[in-house]
Structure formats: C-alpha cells, structure tokens
C-alpha cells in the first residue's frame, strides 16, 4: 500500500492540521515507510481469524454510577482563548 500526496492532504484536512508543501512531502515519505514496515504483517495468513480489539486478557474495568459535583466552569474555560458567560466562544460553525 502506497499513500499519495492527496491522501496525506485529506488526512490533514480531516484532522484540521495545516501542512506546508514541504511538511506534506516529508510526511508522505515517513508514512509510506511506516506502512511498508507494517506491511510485513501481511505475510501471515489471517483468513478466518477475527480481528483482535485488545491484546490484554483482563476485562473492562467499570465504575459505579455516582456523580460528582465538580462545578468545573472556571477551570475548564481557563485555556479558552475566547469565552462568554461560561460558554466557549469559537469561530462561527455554520449550520
């Protein structure tokens, strides 16, 4: 499997990451070499084998349904570049 620049740019766009042409080129090279390396796994026959979601044999830890009153507004908004009356203010998302 080989990636092309279009795919790199599409992935970047989906993640909202801005890439310069040079960065895009570098990433293309890096990612292709990673994929090449992973490609070796294709040598193993995995027909009729269910994909494994996790290699750990322990079971999913669970918690009780207890709510904590955290009153988080101030703390959570601390890093926000823009806010208004307890809300995050972000560039308009049209819809």
């Amino acid at each position, binding site marked *: 499997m080989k990636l092309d620049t279009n795919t790199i740019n599409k992935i970047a*766009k989906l993640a909202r990451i801005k890439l310069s042409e040079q960065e895009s080129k570098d990433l293309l090279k890096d990612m292709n070499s990673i994929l090449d390396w992973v490609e070796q796994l294709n040598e193993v026959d995995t027909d009729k084998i269910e994909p494994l979601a996790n290699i750990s044999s322990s079971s999913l830890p*669970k918690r009780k349904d207890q*709510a904590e009153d*955290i009153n988080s*507004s101030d703390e959570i908004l601390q890093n926000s570049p823009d806010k*208004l009356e307890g809300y995050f203010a*972000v560039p308009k998302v*049209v819809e």
Partner: protein
Amino acid sequence: MNNNLIKGNKFEWETIIGLEIHAQVKSKSKLFSNSSTAFGSKPNSQVSLVDAAMPGMLPVINQYCIEQAVRTGIGLNAKINNYSVFDRKNYFYADLPQGYQISQYKYPIVGEGKVTIDFKDGNSKDIRIVRLHLEQDAGKSLHDQNPTKTYVDLNRSGVALMEIVSEPDIRSADEAGLYINKIRSILMYLDTCDGNMQEGSLRADVNISVRKPGDDYGTRCEIKNLNSIKFIKQAINYEAKRQIEILEEGGTIEQNTLLFNTSNGKTRPMRSKEEAHDYRYFPDPDLLPLDISQREIDKLKSSITELPDDRKKRYVNEYNLSNYDASVLTADKYVSDYFDDVINTDKSLKNSSKIVVNWITSELFSILNEKNVEINKSPITPKYLGRLIKLILEDVISGKIAKDVLIDMYNTKRDPETIIDKKGLKQLTNTNEIEDIVKEVLEENQKMVEQYLSGKDKLLGFFVGESMKKSKGKANPKILNEILKAKLSKKN
C-alpha cells in the same frame, strides 16, 4: 391493504422510512466519567477533565449504563451480544473535544429485535430493529447568539446515548409516529430513558426514500436531529413530496444529509456536505472489549416487570378492552399506572373497565389538560376517582353530578363521599319523594300534559327535564322515567 401510497401527478409512490433514535440513558453520571448529567445546569459546570479530553485522561465505563442498554435491548425483544467493542468515530467539530466520539461500530451491545405498533383499525405491524449501541453524546452549540461566533457548552458532552436503529420497515409519517411513541413507551416502562423530547433526551434521525410499489429501494436522504413527533411527521411528509416531484419530472435524488427547518416546514441540505464524512472507525485502544455473561443478562431480565405489550395483553384479557384502547392506555406508563390504581380500588370496577377508561380519558384528562397538570401529579388520587366511579355504578349519584363532584375533588383534594354529603348531592331513589316532584311538574304544566295525551310523545323528555331540574339533578333517572310514564298513562 396499502393505503399508505402517496399519489403524485403521474404515479403512486411508497415511502420507505428507517429511524435512528437517540435515547439518553437515565443515569446520574456520564458514560465514561463521573460528572453529572443533570439538565439545565450552568454552562460547562459539569465537564470533567475526561469530558474535556485533556491529555492523559482515560475513560472508565459506567456499569449502570451498560445494564440499562441491556435492559432496553430485552425490552426491544432483541439479541443481547455477549461481546461488544467500543470504537472511535473520528470527526472534527467544536462541540467534540476528543476529536472523536466513542461509539460502537462492528460489534454493538444489542443486535436484532422487533417492536409492534398498533393501528386504530385493530391491526398491528412489526418494525424490525437492526441494533442498539452505546455512544457518547456531543456538547451543545449555540449558533444564533452572535453573528461571528458559536458558543459551546460541554455539559452534555460524554452523556450516554443508546442509538436504536430500525430496519426501513416504516411506510408513512403516521407509522413513524406510532413507532417512536412505542419506543418511548418501552424506554419509560423500563425507566432507562426519561423520554423527554423537549429537553432532547429522545431525538431521531429519519432516513427516507420513495419508490413505485414493487420497485427496488430508491436513493435515500437522511433528515438529522428531529426532536418532536410532530416535526418528524412534518419532515417526512415534506421530504416524500419533494422526492416524488423530482422523480416525476425525470430527475434523480441526490443522497444527502438534510436539516428540517421547523419554522417553514421544509428540509434543506446541510452545508458541510462537500466534505463527505470519513469517520475512520477503529477500536478505541483506551477501552477493552465488553463481555457480558449470560448470567448477568438473565439477572437483568428478571429485573424487568411489565412491558407495554404485556400490560396491553393483560388489559385485553382481564378487562375486556379492545386491542387499540389497551394500546392507547398503556402507551404512557403514568396513565396506565393510574388506571391500574383506579381499577384496583374496588372489585366492582373490574367489570366496568370501559367506564373507568372513559372517566380517565375524558373527564379527568379535560380537567388536567385545562390546568396543565401531569397525571402523576393529579390532586385527584386514583383511589378517590375509583370511589367516585363506584358511587355512580351504585346509583348513589348520577354521572352528571359526578362530573361536578370531580371538579370539587380537584379543587379541594377531598374524597368524593365528603363532598357528596356536604353538598347533599345524593341521588333521590325514594319513590315517594320523586312522585311528589313529578306530581308538581305535571300540575304546573297542564297544557303540555294535554298535548302529550293527544299524541305528542316527544314531550316526555320535557317532563323528565323539568322534574330533574326540580330535584336539582338528583333524581334517579330510571325511577323518574318509570314514575312519569305511570302517572301519565293513568291520566289517559
């Protein structure tokens, strides 16, 4: 039988509808964090570091939410999967701090099931369920407060949702309404979701296409995020018409995600459509697969008492109600609980279930609607209403007087016997007293009596009315009628 067809200008069309219902799990804390789910709190006050997706935070699943999803699956007559997996659904949006939603893709917690909807004409229909899976809700965006900004409240971010996906078995807006009502009713009986559509605890995406009967499915459009049954029906009717018009003019339907504008009743494409969604699902490495043993499932099964369909059957068998009446009555758990409590007031009421239904659905509802009070908060207790109906059945008061007593009961919260005693409303069954009244009425209206005797039979009603008035509505109608007829025939 197919009266669901829509007539276009040229052909008849069938509407094919499938629903994705998002039901908020009624839990105290979120699906993967312990912040509160309380509605209407101060913006961003219930956002833990997990919900805000701060680096290094890890999700820990809420056991209660798993149980409620399983119980809901049982209520949907569905297969519960012993093995399910949480996946990341990746997309970028301002109200999704993680940059992905934790959802279930290939291995949902609940598989195929079915629910039954009941029609007025007594027919029923099964709607198949494809799956139910658990996922996180997103935050809330306010778009209309500022021309250049969107405001974001993350309180809802991470609250547990059950997404219930139906097969495209629905054929009309009405069926869609019945289906969503049925799902809502099942959720409320199970108490797994509060069913509050206004607050967004229950909302739906509608997939819709049209075809000529017998043809293959047409191209579908998806209408997003509808939060009332009224809007769902409006949106379906508008969208079906729109698609039919395009097809009859020789056009083709473009597969699209639509929004419904509630102020003009029209659908329009979402603007972000050009960036076709590419969710890049993969198993969330932060979460192990979820194993549920058959023992756990059985234990949850035994926690379910009575579902709407069970109760409906009981009403049909025990109280002789029609299938449709029983389904209307059981649709709302509170109404149905109230009915049960009324009828259990006294054994005699069991044989008069239809009367009990009428007193609840017409008399009680009209008072409660007028005062805008929910039935589970009715000042008239089921016991008192039961006793009032018993008094009618025993001829202690007439139905007409009982209506006034009911209003008094609402206002004073008193029991019916006290009100009837205090106001002296007991029905007159003493023949001597009624005879006296009749005598007076006939004497006062001699002319009418003559007319009656000369053949104007209809005047009997007039004498009944006058006598009733004189008794202040208290005369037993049956006895009154008998006495009147006897007296009049004697004069002949």
